[in-house]
């Protein structure tokens, strides 16, 4: 759908723009990832509110994670998470074999070192969504071969 293109282009431009500014400015590379993640956090919070307006109450943590994997991911990325694994002790691994934001980039190991930049926003998105559903978490991502990637969610017990 046309909306997807707009978001994809905007996202890529944001990543490129932020890193370009960092190169010309202080050269603090780590800050860019934090900025992208915090942007994703804000967006995730807002989006999950609009999304869960009419849905039923969630039974437990696993239910929330399943919601993120199915409905949330489908709305945002037009597909579901391919694999959800958990150790039932607060760690979840979401695997997407064809991550929408990476498909246009490469299909294998090329540009692998640049992939994490494009995942920071989505990590923030997940963290923001979970935070507004009452779950405090840390989300990281790893890519071994594009466009498949894994998001690891560590629930923080308050």
């Amino acid at each position, binding site marked *: 759908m046309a909306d997807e293109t707009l978001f994809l282009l905007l996202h890529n431009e*944001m990543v490129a*723009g932020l890193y370009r500014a960092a190169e010309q400015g202080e050269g603090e590379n780590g800050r860019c990832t934090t900025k992208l993640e915090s*942007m994703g956090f804000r967006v995730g919070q807002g989006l999950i509110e609009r999304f869960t307006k009419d849905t039923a109450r969630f039974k437990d943590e696993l239910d929330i994670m399943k919601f993120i994997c199915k409905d949330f991911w489908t709305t945002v990325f037009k597909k579901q998470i391919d694999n959800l694994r958990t150790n039932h002790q607060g760690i979840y691994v979401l695997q997407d074999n064809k991550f929408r934001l990476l498909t246009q980039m490469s299909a294998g190991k090329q540009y692998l070192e640049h992939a994490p930049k494009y995942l920071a926003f989505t990590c923030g998105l997940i963290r923001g969504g979970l935070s507004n559903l009452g779950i405090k978490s840390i989300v990281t991502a790893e890519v071994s071969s594009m466009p498949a990637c894994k998001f690891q969610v560590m629930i923080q017990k308050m």
Partner: protein
Amino acid sequence: MSRPPARKQENHKISRELFVLTYGALVAQLCKDYEKDEDVNICLDRMGYSIGIRLIDDFLARSAVKKCRSYSETTDMIAQVAFKMYLGVTASVSCTSAAGNEFSLILDKNPLVDFVEELPAERASLCYCNLLCGVIRGALEMVHLAAEVTFLQDRLKGDAVTEIGITFLRKAEDRKHKR
């Protein structure tokens, strides 16, 4: 499909909201990074330009429109087809110069500012939607039409409507088939 049809509309709306929210987060981040409004405006315009030069390919592929023969046809295309396709709204066009190369698009509803109530006091000259100007400029440049695109009126700054002005930089002349 076990999902009711109403859900699909909602999902469509939400994916547009994703774009709007992301744009808002971007502007907020830029405001934190740059102190002067002018710098933020320039940055947004530059980003819009980069998006526009890529968006035009997507637009032409999706819409399969015929070649536009005049500036006014081009502007109509932007206002009716492109805006509808990407933002879900249409703009009305009016020609503001006798030479036929200055136009203005009037937007009653600007989806980018759906979640914005007002600009903060210290950011009074921020062009919140400056990305749109850059996108239009970039897209036009890729079809070999140099243009200047600016915001003439902005509802967020208190004007009645949101108006974008497009000035084509070459004299309007009969354009022959180039291919």
